[in-house]
């Protein structure tokens, strides 16, 4: 009986008071992203390296690695929404490893708003594909999840047709050289005409050196794609150029 009364009160309360949701990352106010997280995680004041998406000082266009020619070669431009650290890192890891994909919906609007400001409109969006072994474990491809959110918000069509044909160890455990080697022949085009003359946003969750995005972009260009832009949730920052960060 008590439970019944409690439930009744809860429902009546819900008629008067809207449930307030906090910041997606830290739980603070206001939602969906509080000013502190915007400043500490998204760094709107910083620039992004055109080639690999890394966070750099506003005055520069390329990071040190990319200036030396070590960065990706095929992508027209790469942008990362925020810095892969703190609450943003926890958020991405919770979605990926905590099997909590629904949380990603909370960022769809701000992410899409930011993406359309930073990148030119394209013919469609493509998610970095995931190999079937990892898919069986996780049940979803987080890159596809982000792609579907962008599609929902901006109406850009989702493209398919690239397959991950090689199961590779996670990039995070490897060095720069190993990463490049790791991704050799990892992706394949399912049909040659699919991307002919098309421009694409290529989507992934996290980028470090940009090598995964570049490996897919290479396949797309070989398939006749016109322009490939990279879009990620998070990336690292260049320590040398951005002093004051730990």
């Amino acid at each position, binding site marked *: 009986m008590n439970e019944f009364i409690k439930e009744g009160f809860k429902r009546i309360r819900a008629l008067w008071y809207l449930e307030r949701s906090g910041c997606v990352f830290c739980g603070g106010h206001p939602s969906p992203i509080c000013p502190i997280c915007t400043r500490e995680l998204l760094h709107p004041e910083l620039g992004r390296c055109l080639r690999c998406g890394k966070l750099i000082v506003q005055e520069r266009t390329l990071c040190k690695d990319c200036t030396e020619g070590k960065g990706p070669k095929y992508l027209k431009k790469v942008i990362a929404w925020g810095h892969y650290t703190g609450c943003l890192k926890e958020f991405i890891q919770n979605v990926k490893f905590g*099997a*909590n994909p629904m949380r990603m919906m909370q960022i769809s609007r701000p992410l899409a708003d930011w993406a359309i400001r930073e990148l030119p409109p394209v013919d469609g969006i493509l998610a970095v594909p995931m190999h079937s072994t990892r898919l069986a*474990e996780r*049940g*979803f491809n987080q890159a596809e999840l982000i792609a579907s959110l962008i599609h929902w918000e901006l109406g850009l069509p989702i493209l398919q047709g690239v397959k991950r044909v090689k199961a590779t160890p996670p990039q995070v455990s490897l060095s720069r050289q190993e990463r490049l080697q790791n991704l050799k022949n990892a992706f394949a085009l399912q049909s040659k005409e699919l991307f002919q003359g098309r421009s694409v946003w290529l989507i992934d969750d996290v980028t470090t050196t940009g090598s995964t995005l570049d490996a897919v972009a290479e396949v797309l260009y070989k398939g006749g794609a016109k322009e490939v832009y990279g879009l990620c949730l998070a990336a690292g920052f260049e320590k040398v150029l951005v002093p004051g960060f730990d």
Partner: protein
Amino acid sequence: MDFYLTLNEDGDVGYTFNQGMDRLPSKVSCLKIPLPLGVIQSVQTQMTKFKKQRHFRLKGNYHERIRSELFKVLNNRDWDVPKLTWEKDFVSLRSETPASTAGKGDDKELLFQSFDWLVRGRQLSWEDLRNLAHELKCYEETILQFAQINVAAKKAEWIPAVLRQGEGWQCQRCGAKDIKEWPSFYGRAGTCLSCMSLGSSTSLKAFYRDYRPLPEDTEKVDFRPHWKLTEAQGVAAEEILDFLKDSSETKALLWAACGSGKTEVCFPSAAWALEQGKSVLFAAPRQDVINDVAPRLKRDFPGVAIQVLTGNAPVKFQRGRVVLATTHQVLRFWQAFDLIVLDEMDAFPYQGNGALEWGLKHALRSNGKLLYLTATPSPEGLKEVHRGKMRLIRLPARHHRFPLPVPIIERFSQRFDPERNPPSLRRDRFESLRHKGRILVFVPKISWIQPWINRFRQCFPEWKIDGSYSSDSERSVKLEKLRQGKFDLFLSTTILERGITLEGIQVVVLGADHPVFDERALVQMAGRVGRTRKDPGGYVLFMAHLETTAIKKAIHWIEDQNRMALEKGLIGEDLKGISNE
């Protein structure tokens, strides 16, 4: 951890593990794409139903029909793959590896024995198995191979971590039914958010569930108590032993006075159970309690291997039939124990937590016994006693035969909230308390701690004053200092209300009328005073603006315990009330 769907020559659907890592009984065809275990099992169920249909056996080519039905089931699933075909997506496998592959070489044999010993009676996620690989210093694949050997020998089983039940889901680790559902690549999937602190649990993941009991030690149980049971304890201990021997009862509640030595009362019964070759679990909701009990248990059971498992334990896989664990760790066991002693049954986070209740139920073997220990039973617990579903064992007196100190209420015209002009401190009151012993001050909220520390420091600049709360990063260091008697006055939230013994301590509850403090919390806080033989008396002050029902109930409860102890002759009549003189 990949599972691959297989189809054998008899048309039975099964699975193989990491494509041929395990032993395959006969020639099978194997789907090249890995699938979550839950998906394979649902395909298995559908195929078994199909095979049972009578007309199916009569018509056409058996193998052809099985295959076409399997494709129908697979292609009809709500997933996003191009149509599967036999030639493209299936591969033929024949086992060439015997079951004893893992046994090749002495090192691997030894490794397997260690693994086999450590996983008995456990239910482990992939993350847990990876930790085990790390602790045994071997490859993750080796551990999976070992696990699969036990599964093939029917000693263990792989089960989907979250299982579909009718229209809903149930987490197989914590039993939660409130599962977050989401559309996965393989159709609807569920994630359990209740036990996320132990790693993710989803319908796409699998748990390794070992059905064997904890291994028996061959060594004789050496029980050497360093104390003598008092009369009251002796009676209770006898009754507990009687409960263990009585096969008709499964649950009992030991209702003991605070500081009556209820944990030690269970030791003789634990010793008896161990001698019978049974396994014993001491579970408590908080790490502090476990850390307090562990040295006592180790001292009284020398030579008996005891596992101490808490969230912070550096080694998660240990040996021994006696396990001391926080209630969360219990979720990693499966039908492992003959006796579970649950200390502080009404304490946070156990009370009202269905997940841990479920965990305890499944950690217990069939015909196992569950003994709850508490100083402040919950209404639900007492209800079960009244219904005759649980035996009640009372232990109303402390071992030193002194009564429990009865709290004194001190009323103030203001509330104690530091932000709302709280009453000023009465220096003489605290000085006289300090004269009796060190002072432990309880406050209802974390936000009160620092302002009150500052006020006390202002008032008593010569005293050593500090405080702590649950999320305090220096908590363990401060508590150690407190145990060593390095503070004159220490402030705390309810973290110190249970399971801690501090000699000569005096208790003050600031804002005892705060709704956070129910009668049970107040009884527990009062129970910190006068616990040792050396210092059996002391003061408990409830400082409050109002005299709430909880305060009245708590005092009534304590007085009732004293009365009962006196009636039974368990406390000295001449000593009655001495502690508050």
